[in-house]
């Protein structure tokens, strides 16, 4: 049974909205799309801040919004927490109290609240500013507080609207890792491709108040509906166990890393970073493996090549290279990638 299922319509001002999709329990769905596409509107519908005008929204087994049946469960009764795009950190509460806020609503014991707040402060590097009021914080600090508060709330379904857009790269990369490993059902709006691919188990592309594409990152990136989506998704993501310079890919194969790691890691590299060779290459690329061409999607001048060796990946090469290498479905060749092109982030650990 799905965690959440929406098939309905609404309207924002004069913009008609129409969505149909579902999310599985524990699944991480990333919503992408241009400015004004209707991403925030979608989250508002799910959270109960924007009622449907038609259709049905169910969370778990329960119908929570259905104009025909005259059902509308208000926001505070839904098992969702929506972090608005503006963050909406309460101006009258200090950092620690903002984080404690959702816990207070649940009648959690105050001891447990204190502990949870402490942990969250620690995790989001907010301990030093725990007693500061929001108007004394920087933009990025505010975003961290907002996210910390949403995480502390620990809802069944977490709805995040561009939570890392003003957070610095170092913090946002571990935050992305953290979100990736979260077992909560998560729907995240993002403008950052890396974030989308690290976190998203499925991608929803929204345009003009409608869903124009949905699928796994691999599906969406090998067959993007339009150039905007194509540009957005240009990454391969793998999980692996690293020891020293070597990462053993889950499911088989291994990759050489630029730095030593000794833990479970996430590995990402641009599709365009994979080079294909007909004979074993010699040079700085430390990683060379044998692959078979499984899919070929040409988009005018560039070609997305689905390759399978010990693990699956997508390579993006030019039409010219394709012709030169004479690749066809089933062709065996060598894939190479430089260790430095591989972005490694630890899995599970934070900061």
């Amino acid at each position: 049974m799905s965690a959440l299922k929406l098939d309905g319509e609404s309207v924002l001002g004069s913009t008609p909205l129409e969505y149909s999709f579902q999310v599985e329990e524990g699944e991480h769905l990333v919503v992408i799309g241009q400015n004004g596409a209707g991403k925030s509107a979608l989250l508002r519908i799910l959270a109960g801040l924007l009622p449907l005008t038609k259709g049905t929204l169910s969370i778990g087994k329960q119908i929570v919004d259905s104009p025909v049946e005259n059902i509308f469960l208000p926001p505070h009764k839904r098992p969702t927490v929506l972090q608005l795009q503006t963050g909406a950190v309460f101006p009258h509460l200090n950092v620690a109290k903002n984080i404690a806020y959702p816990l207070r609503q649940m009648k959690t014991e105050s001891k447990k609240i204190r502990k949870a707040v402490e942990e969250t402060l620690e995790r989001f590097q907010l301990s030093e500013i725990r007693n500061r009021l929001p108007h004394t914080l920087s933009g990025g600090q505010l975003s961290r507080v907002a996210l910390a508060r949403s995480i502390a709330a620990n809802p069944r379904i977490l709805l995040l609207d561009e939570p890392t857009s003003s957070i610095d790269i170092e913090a946002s990369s571990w935050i992305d890792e953290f979100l990736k490993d979260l077992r909560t059902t998560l729907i995240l709006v993002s403008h950052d491709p890396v974030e989308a691919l690290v976190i998203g188990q499925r991608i929803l592309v929204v345009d003009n108040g409608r869903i124009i594409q949905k699928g796994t990152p691999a599906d969406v990136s090998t067959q993007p509906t339009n150039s905007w989506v194509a540009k957005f998704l240009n990454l391969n993501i793998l999980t692996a166990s690293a020891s020293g310079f070597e990462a053993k890919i889950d499911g088989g194969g291994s990759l050489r890393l630029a730095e030593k790691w000794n833990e479970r890691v996430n590995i990402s590299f641009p599709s365009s970073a994979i080079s294909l060779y007909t004979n074993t290459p010699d040079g700085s690329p430390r990683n060379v493996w044998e692959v078979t061409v499984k899919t070929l999607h040409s988009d005018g001048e560039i070609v997305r090549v689905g390759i399978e060796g010990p693990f699956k990946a997508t390579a993006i090469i030019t039409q010219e290279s394709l012709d030169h290498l004479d690749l066809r479905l089933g062709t065996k060749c060598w894939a190479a990638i430089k260790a430095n092109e591989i972005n490694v982030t630890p899995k599970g650990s934070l900061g």
Partner: protein
Amino acid sequence: MRTRKPTLIPPPIAIFGTFAMLLILVPFIGLAQRTPWGSFLSILGESSVRSAISLSLLVASVSAFICLILGLPLGWILARSQSLWMRLLRAIVLLPMVLPPVAGGTALLFALGRRGFVGQKLDEWFGITLPFTTTGAIIAATFVSLPFFVLAIETSINDLNRDFEESAMSLGSSPTRTFFSVTVPLIRTGLIAGLTLSWARALGEFGATITFAGDNPGRTRTLPLELFVALESDPNRAVVIGMIMIIISLGVLITLRGRWIGQK
């Protein structure tokens, strides 16, 4: 907000602002000039004046408190409800300001007096009569000062960014809890303004009180009533009582409002 150079007041604003301040200040200078300061302390020492002072403070404070309890919800409803009826209610709320207080007091008598359509029942069923009691004075003061409070609240809530309340609800807070834990703290400035206005208005209330609650030393004779009686017989005494009112309210307003605003 952030530290910064003290705001420079643009000249046109300074000129008009000073003029406004003078319009308010000059009459009080006139009053101070005419005050027989020699008799100030002896009048202040009179037991009737003392009891009028404490009664005034009691009536004004209780009435401000009732405004808070009743006006806060009403202000919220007026700001948030989108029904067409609200337009009418919004206008009705202001009526106690429009009617001269003496007329307002008469209206109160018509409704809550012993013969009034509500007062009658109160008397029959519970044996309660409101006129000529301190409760009556408090009701009269509340009636005239509630509009200020409600309007201050309504305005603040109208100006509030809904993001905070929406977030609170999404974080699991019920509408009632959201109201108390988010809305009320965020309209703090408006709330304080409303309390100040209604307290000040209640302190100066005369017409409705004398009409509805009558003039009874110790029970309903507040400072404005004491002042009125003095006006009939001894204008100098009236001026002194006026000065006493001014000094008391300056004291209270500077201390409390200064503290409230300072905490911000």
